[in-house]
């Protein structure tokens, strides 16, 4: 089973990396890119049977290691390869 974890800085937290990219894009004349936020993206390969187990495990791992709840929030997508659907 595959889980995708997206970790982003919380809305209220200033994102220097995203801001720098936005600035760079503006000097390259991409003015239509109004704002950029940068986060981290993880693909986990999990040795579990069900989508629920995958979600639970990915959640635990994100909570304990992948994200710092003080500044970040995360979102999880589980892909059941047998049926090819993202949940």
């Amino acid at each position, binding site marked *: 089973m595959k889980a995708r974890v997206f970790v982003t800085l919380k809305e209220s937290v200033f994102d220097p990396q995203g*801001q*720098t990219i936005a*600035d*760079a894009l503006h*000097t*390259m004349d991409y003015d239509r890119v109004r704002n950029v936020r940068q986060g981290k993206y993880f693909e986990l390969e999990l040795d579990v049977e069900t989508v629920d187990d995958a979600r639970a495990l990915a959640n635990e791992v994100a909570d304990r290691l992948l994200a710092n709840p003080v500044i970040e929030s995360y979102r999880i997508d589980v892909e059941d390869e047998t049926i090819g659907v993202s949940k």
Partner: protein
Amino acid sequence: MVTINSKTLDHHGLSREEYQKILEILGREPSPTEIGIFSVMWSEHCSYKSSRIHLRTLPTTGARVVQGPGENAGAVDVGDGLVAVFKIESHNHPSFIEPYQGAATGVGGIIRDIFTMGARPIALLNSLRFGSLNDAKTRGILEGVVAGIGGYGNSIGIPTVGGEILFEDTYKGNPLVNVFCLGLAQAGKLVMGEASGAGNPVYYVGAKTGRDGIHGATMASAEFDEQSSEKRPAVQVGDPFMEKLLLEACLELMQTNALVGIQDMGAAGLTCSTSEMGSRGGVGIDIDVTRVPQRESGMTPYEIMLSESQERMLMVVHRGREAEVERIFKKWDLHAVSIGVVTDDGQLRVREGDSVVAEIPNGKLADEAPCYNRPTEIPGYLEQVRHLDLEALPVLPAAESALLKLLGSLAVTSKHWVYRQYDHMVRTNTIAPAGMGAGVVRLKGTDRALAISVDGNGRHCYLDPHLGAMLAVAEAARNVACAGALPIGATNCLNFGNPERPEIMWQFARAVEGIGEACRALELPITGGNVSFYNETDGQAIYPTPVLGVVGVIENASSVLNRVFPSSQSAILLLGGGSGVLGGSEYLKTVCGQVAGSLAPLSLDSERRLQQLLVELAAAGLIQSAHDCSDGGLAVALAECCFDSGGAGADLMMPDDASGGRTDVAEASILFGEAPSRVLVSIAESDFGIVRKKVEIAGVPIAAQGQTGGDRITISLAGRKVLDLSVADAEAAWRQGMERFFVNRAA
């Protein structure tokens, strides 16, 4: 078995003659793995086939040389039972296609070369060349390269203590990234990349092997289908954390005597390390590729042998000591895996399980590598670019505005933007602040310090490769001497175009001659180096760019000097004669937009006396600062001595050297003309007399005198002021020359 056709040979960069030699050595047709092994071992990169004949002429011996070229790095004795192990290497092409990782893995590679020798790396430097920063793509490459160098060095905890960076259009499509590393080892405890003792196990340690950096393209064989070349990334990703673990584990292992020999897997990975270790020791090595830790499935022996995955080492250890070795690596969470054994039959034998996929006489692979004396020819451009008619220059700007322009130019401006991104202090040995001249690291537990400088000027070498190369040696050594250090050893990185073109080969041959001449005269043995050919885009070669790295010793670390004038009232002397010339100068390029003319000559004898004098005066504590006149000439050097001093100015007086011709040209030559062997020093008023005497005894001319003080930079000729600028204005121009090219929201 595949038949070898001409396409296969082309893909592997092997000529018909080279293939004939392979047939002779083997007495049969090579297997795919064997052709791969020959192709990388006989590549320009590993065999130095076009350069060897020239490099042989370099001086490599001296009383202090402990290890000359041939090992992973050279070494010189620095006293107190210590040796300095150092080398420079290029990572130009990878840094162009993936700036961050290309530069980072370059740093990783040179660090491995140093700790492989049993030395703890204590300093990094880098020499960089880019096109103009007006180009957005170039800015992106620069940002990536600098971040990559910092990313690797900072993380592994080795300070980047210095370097140089220059900008010329010629490097736009072919930037140069040369990295230098120096380490420290106990004398007599160097570890060699040599295998010996039949029956001793061969260990693999470090990162797993993937399909990284395999260049030998597709072969007409089921083994090498299109898809597998698709899967081969051209650039590796660096893992400084892994390297830090490897570094500590290897150094710990070297404290035991369980190790026979060790070599890092750099270019040509497992192939190069097994065959070189075997041939150095005159033994055979027998390995089984199925035991090599692999990152990907389905790798062929060919791919495993040629992979350039990073952060890997090959070791031979004494039989019976295996458990001890494995325990040390386990402590650092690394696996040491036995992949084979040393034999006494001299063969490099590669097995895949039960079958032998390659069997090559080790010695012949190394010793019978091709060696070419390629034709040379004077390049056609030379006559034209050497011609310079000074009288025909347009009216020159006022000295003050020319100086401001030069100070803000990329060649001269503060490189703070660069070195701020490097941790230059970790390990608390760096006793020269960043950006003040040579990098200086103290040797804890002794009174000594080492000073290091890397220098080169491609524009000079373009105009005159022989003299340009000599100037690079002289400047690197002089920068070290300006820190108060006696230059004792050198390494070089030779960046050139395609050696198959006679004009390029001529540049190369002339440059190597120049390096040899200068090093002999300055008693600077070359203990190693690196050649990077084929630096071209669209058939247009870069400026010939030899970069010299020079290491010097300061006997008493507390006498280290830098460029900054002291705040007290001091006397200034310009040591060394030889008025500057505008030919090939930064002034001519930046202010007049021309690259032309002849460079000022170098007297190696004067240079040597000047450097010895500097070391003597510094050791005696008789001078307070020293800075050489380099890019931008005297006026720029004088201004630089005033920067970072808190705004103290300087006033310099020179006799008029009436030369006839246009007065603006004559003045510009004096202020901004360039010539070697000129150094500005400051002296406490009370020491002035004794210094003068020592200078006289040394036979070094004094070209100008002055005082520090005030808040302006002034120069007068025979009592007439020809330059008068406030330090504040000058320093402001100098500080922002590089920063202004980058969006910078930060403090």
